């Protein structure tokens, strides 16, 4: 029996010739990640376990991105705890304010993950790096602590669902529309415990930022990981960037998949996930022109805070104004994205349109800071979750969409098709 891409990476890191779905294995890790929320819990566990060293100080990354720049005294204390730990154990990839970006935008950009890597991260969106042909999955803080100590983690080898993407997407259709469409189809537990593996001639039309966005939201379908085969688009991206040795793994011809979906990208329409689950997908054609009046638009996050995302937003906002009564908040994912957007003149467009530009932070995505919603308020957001109370008050609402839809909606004041702005 052949293996999937995910199974091959797991087998290689477990020192096995082959693995099969359901098998429990222990595998060697190339990267162990934590942030300012999950690292403190991991450090407590590390200390409670009387650990006195880390397995490899270059294979641990700690990124202060969620509640930073420190939103309050407690958040400041958490960052201080991580800073002390990073200093004590000489953690090479500790990213503090000034160097940090949103972790899942930052690690690929810094070349800390790449084709064939096996990564765990104490953050559910660690699945993002599958875009580069890595096996990468979210875990909790105790797994992070155990990974920091031993360099290993246990895995139940997942079975997989195959997604064959065909055709060329129309203008304004991005990776976000693809993944919201898929989650709308299979549901928030449609890929529970399994891999989502992407194939097809449509991949040539999805740039790295689109793929990072799609893999990022694999967890929103319950998946263990999402993964793309390495191609020239990947190779071009990792060139002069990836610090490791890239290894390309392709699924065997006789690899077994639980299910297969064929998705014609040319038929996709701009898609919005309504409250309070990412599976509540509707195309813009199914939304009345004045059906959803918004109070806020957020463009950023580990899902859509990359340069292509900001360019897509700028294309819409250029020469236009954010509607009266709408707060439009733009959050570049990393310092590099920030610089690039600034040099390209995107900030002039944003600020002249009446939007604000923030330093990189997860901020409002999880209701931390930098754009919390009041009771009854509605936001269109390029983030990844629209659960009850996610961005603020328990009676506020979040609608998930692409940067183009979010920017267009900010201009109209209502959720709208970007083609209509």
């Amino acid at each position, binding site marked *: 029996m052949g293996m999937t891409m995910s199974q091959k990476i797991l087998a290689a890191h477990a020192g096995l010739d082959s693995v099969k779905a359901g098998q*429990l294995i222990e595998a060697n890790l190339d990267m162990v990640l934590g942030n300012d*929320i*999950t690292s*403190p*819990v991991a450090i*407590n*566990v590390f200390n*409670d*376990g*009387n*650990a006195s060293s880390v397995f490899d100080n270059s294979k641990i990354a700690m990124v202060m991105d*969620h*509640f930073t720049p420190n*939103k*309050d005294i*407690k*958040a400041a204390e*958490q960052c201080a705890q991580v800073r002390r730990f990073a200093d004590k154990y000489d953690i090479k990839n500790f990213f503090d304010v000034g160097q940090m970006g949103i972790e899942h935008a930052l690690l690929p950009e810094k070349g800390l993950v790449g084709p064939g890597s096996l990564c765990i*991260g*104490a*953050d*559910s969106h*660690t699945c993002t790096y599958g875009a580069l042909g890595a096996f990468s999955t*979210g*875990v*909790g*803080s*105790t*797994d992070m*602590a*155990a990974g920091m*100590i*031993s360099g*290993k983690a*246990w895995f139940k080898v997942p079975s997989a669902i195959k997604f064959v993407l065909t055709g060329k997407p129309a203008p304004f259709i991005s990776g976000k529309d693809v993944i919201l469409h898929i989650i709308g189809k299979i549901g*928030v*537990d449609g890929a*529970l*415990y399994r891999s989502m593996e992407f194939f097809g001639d449509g991949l040539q039309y999805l740039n790295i930022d689109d793929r990072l966005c799609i893999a990022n939201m694999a*967890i929103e379908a*319950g998946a*263990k990981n999402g993964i793309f085969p390495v191609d020239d688009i990947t190779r071009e991206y990792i060139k002069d960037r990836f610090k490791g040795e890239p290894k390309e793994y392709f699924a065997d011809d006789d690899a077994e998949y639980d299910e297969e979906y064929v998705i014609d990208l040319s038929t996709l329409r701009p898609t919005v996930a309504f409250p309070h*689950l990412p599976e509540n997908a509707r195309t813009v054609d199914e939304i009345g022109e004045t059906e959803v009046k918004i109070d806020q638009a957020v463009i950023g996050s580990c899902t859509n805070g990359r340069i292509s995302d900001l360019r897509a937003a700028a294309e819409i906002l250029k020469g236009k104004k954010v509607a009266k009564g709408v707060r439009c908040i733009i959050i570049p994912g990393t310092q590099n994205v920030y610089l690039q957007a600034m040099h390209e003149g995107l900030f002039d467009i944003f600020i002249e349109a009446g939007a604000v530009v923030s330093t990189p932070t997860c901020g409002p995505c*999880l*209701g*931390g800071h930098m754009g919390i919603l009041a009771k009854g308020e509605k936001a269109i957001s390029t983030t990844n*979750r629209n*659960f*009850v*109370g*996610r961005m603020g008050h*328990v009676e506020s609402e979040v609608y998930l969409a692409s940067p183009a839809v979010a920017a267009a909606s900010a201009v109209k004041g209502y959720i709208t098709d970007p083609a209509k702005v």
Partner: protein
Amino acid sequence: MKAHGTVHKYGDNVDTDVIIPARYLNTSSHKELASHCMEDIDIDFTKKVKDGDIMVAEKNFGCGSSREHAPIAIKASGISCVIASTFARIFYRNSINIGLPILECDAAAKEIKAGDDVEVDFDTGVITDNTTGKTYQAEPFPPFIQGIIKDGGLINHVTKQA
């Protein structure tokens, strides 16, 4: 090992943001996290929960974030066991790693009601609803996971191997 308590019942897709809202993630204090447990879905939970009580929910319990604060908050609030039709995978791992007993049992998850008096035998996986008199058989843990539980959680398991 056994659990015995009153049931707190929830539906499908209970996410980690309602189990412990992110606005409280600026602390890792178990007690403080417990004081906000389930706040956005069941405002009275922390007032009515008693030590040993059992949480029952339907499919995809614990979906969303990887925050270990979620099973920590549930455990620290006094809950002795969570029964669900299915668990989101990171929540499942985290619960085992921190020693919060969880059981997958679709029939029990669907039929047991809020306020029922329920007993769970972790050795056999048998769930008994004393209120209705019905019993259910949950899926037992694979031996590998039983090993982690026996060692008192993942860190003890890892340090024992080292």
